[in-house]
């Protein structure tokens, strides 16, 4: 138990009579990339919000570094070290890379009552950190809007890591990206994990998830269909589990029947 960095045990969430999540369990070690797969409506966004501290689970517990934790707000989750990067990235396209990077956590300088935003230091750090990912930010005061989707995703992740994330929860990081940009982001995720972060990668795209994931949890209609190590499952099996494989098989049989009858 204690070699898990974070455990989400038997998490359930109800909204009135609707069962959004029931008995979902995920455990991660340091450096592990767990892919959370599921089609739309499977309950992924509810689960993310519970992990991020927006919702409190109705059943189940969260254990972080061996201790039971309750989040009262997203800030609590952030303070502990669980950083969530949502699909909208929390980046303002009109603001500069630096201002976005340090949004809400700006470095200050100056005398006690006249503290100013230390832009020079911030520019330096932002350019440095982006360079470490391999993104050459030519001018850190350029607007984020001039960056590609992949670069922005990397900026959001880099920001989370810089501010001390131990667990990264990434919501559909590659869904809006082309093949090349998706691979840039995925490479960065692997690098982050190799530095000791645990990553929960939420996606509906198995082809992006399979190459980088260490373990896979499939969510279907609020329930977990199980967690599998990569060596124990194939890409095709994951796909069919996600799409409700048995139903598709049944449909195929029915269609064959219809064709036979009508011809």
């Amino acid at each position, binding site marked *: 138990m204690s070699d898990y960095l974070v455990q989400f045990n038997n998490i359930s969430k109800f909204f009135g009579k609707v069962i959004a999540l029931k008995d979902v369990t995920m455990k991660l070690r340091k450096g592990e990339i767990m892919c959370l797969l599921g089609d739309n409506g499977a309950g992924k966004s509810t689960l993310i919000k519970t992990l991020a501290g927006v919702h409190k689970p109705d059943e189940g517990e969260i254990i972080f570094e061996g201790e039971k934790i309750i989040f009262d707000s*997203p*800030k609590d989750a*952030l303070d502990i070290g669980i950083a*969530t990067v*949502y699909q*909208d*990235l*929390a*980046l*303002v*396209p*009109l*603001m500069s890379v630096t*201002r976005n990077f*340090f*949004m*809400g*956590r*700006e470095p*200050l300088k100056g005398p006690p009552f006249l*503290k*100013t*935003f230390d*832009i020079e230091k911030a520019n330096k750090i932002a*350019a*440095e950190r982006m*360079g*470490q990912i*391999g993104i*050459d930010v*030519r001018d850190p005061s350029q*607007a*984020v*809007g*001039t*960056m*590609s*989707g992949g670069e922005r995703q990397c900026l959001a992740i880099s*920001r989370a890591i810089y501010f001390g994330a131990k667990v990264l929860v990434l919501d559909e990081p590659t869904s809006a990206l082309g093949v090349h940009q998706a691979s840039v982001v995925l490479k960065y995720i692997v690098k982050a994990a190799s530095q000791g972060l645990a990553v929960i990668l939420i996606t509906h795209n198995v082809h992006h998830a399979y190459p980088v994931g260490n373990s896979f949890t499939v969510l279907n209609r609020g329930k977990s269909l199980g967690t599998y190590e990569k060596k124990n499952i194939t890409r095709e099996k994951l796909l069919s589990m996600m799409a409700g494989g048995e139903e598709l098989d049944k449909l195929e049989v029915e269609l064959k029947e219809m064709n036979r009858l009508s011809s």
Partner: protein
Amino acid sequence: MSTKSKSIQSKTEFNQDERLQKVSKLRLLLNRPELGALGGAILVFIFFGIVAGDTGMFSAYGMLNFLDVSANLGIIAIAAAMLMIGGEFDLSIGSMIGFAGICIAIPAIYWGWPLWMSIIFAFSMAVLVGYFNGILVVRTGLPSFIVTLAMLFILRGATLALTRLITGRTQVPGLRVLIENDPIAWIFATDTFKWLFTWLGSINLIALRTDGTPLATGIPPSVIWFIFLAIITTWILMKTRYGNWIFASGGDKNGANNVGVPVGRVKISLFIGTAVAATIFATIQVLDAGSADTMRGTLKELEAIAAAVVGGCLLTGGYGSAIGAAFGAIIFGTVSMGIFYTDVDTDWFKVFLGAMMLIAVIFNNYIRRKVTESK
């Protein structure tokens, strides 16, 4: 990894990153939100300089006149710009001006309060009104357009009703005599740099009265306040953490919240800002006219917003400039007075104001797309 960081450091030596095209300096400058407004202001001055150059518009007395109008508008335009950058509108500014004026006049004239106390009272009411506007917007999530539109009516109605109730009329005169010796009023009512004008008069560079004193006596208080507020708000926006929060709250309020920016507190403080700016405007005006009037300030919020838009503020928030709004106010102030020196019917001023706003919005939209063009 070390090769990567080396490439960052060697970037400065290189200067020829192939992705940096040779952008003309002018183009770079135009990317700044306030440059459009500055350009507009220069054009307006050139225009009137040529058309109305010898009419007295640019005499010392004439210039102080339109600068006073510009400065007054500028005070509320700057506050409206800050709020707009933060993602909200305040349509109740004009009604707050009327309300603040009455808050100063009625206690001073009818309840026998010393003037300085009435002024402090008015500013306290401003903080309350601003806080109320802010809390309503933040808690209900309703568009600030609607909330402050409602406040526009509520405040104006309350001003009219209370004034008529207490005084039986809609104006409260008699304040001028109270200004002398008042410890606070002078801040809003004193002309400065009088020595400069006396000297200019003595060497006959500016027009004189029949008794030898200069016609233009000094810089009006509105101009000093205007410059002071422009400097402070620009410093706040560009150099402080709070300024970054303002951009963030307007650019992406949910995202900002998620990374720990206290969006609610920022917005509430900005609403307090517009209410206080309205009160500064009202105090200057009431002390200048020596009276308060329940209808003062009507429609001023629209002029303030127009000036902010001309100054480069996006209506959707997250981008803009307080200095730009200041130039916008200068444009409107100059034109609104300049028209009277020509043979153009003054009703055309409204057409001009609307046209300028339209041009500014189209221009700003173009700039915004350039700034956020992704590869």
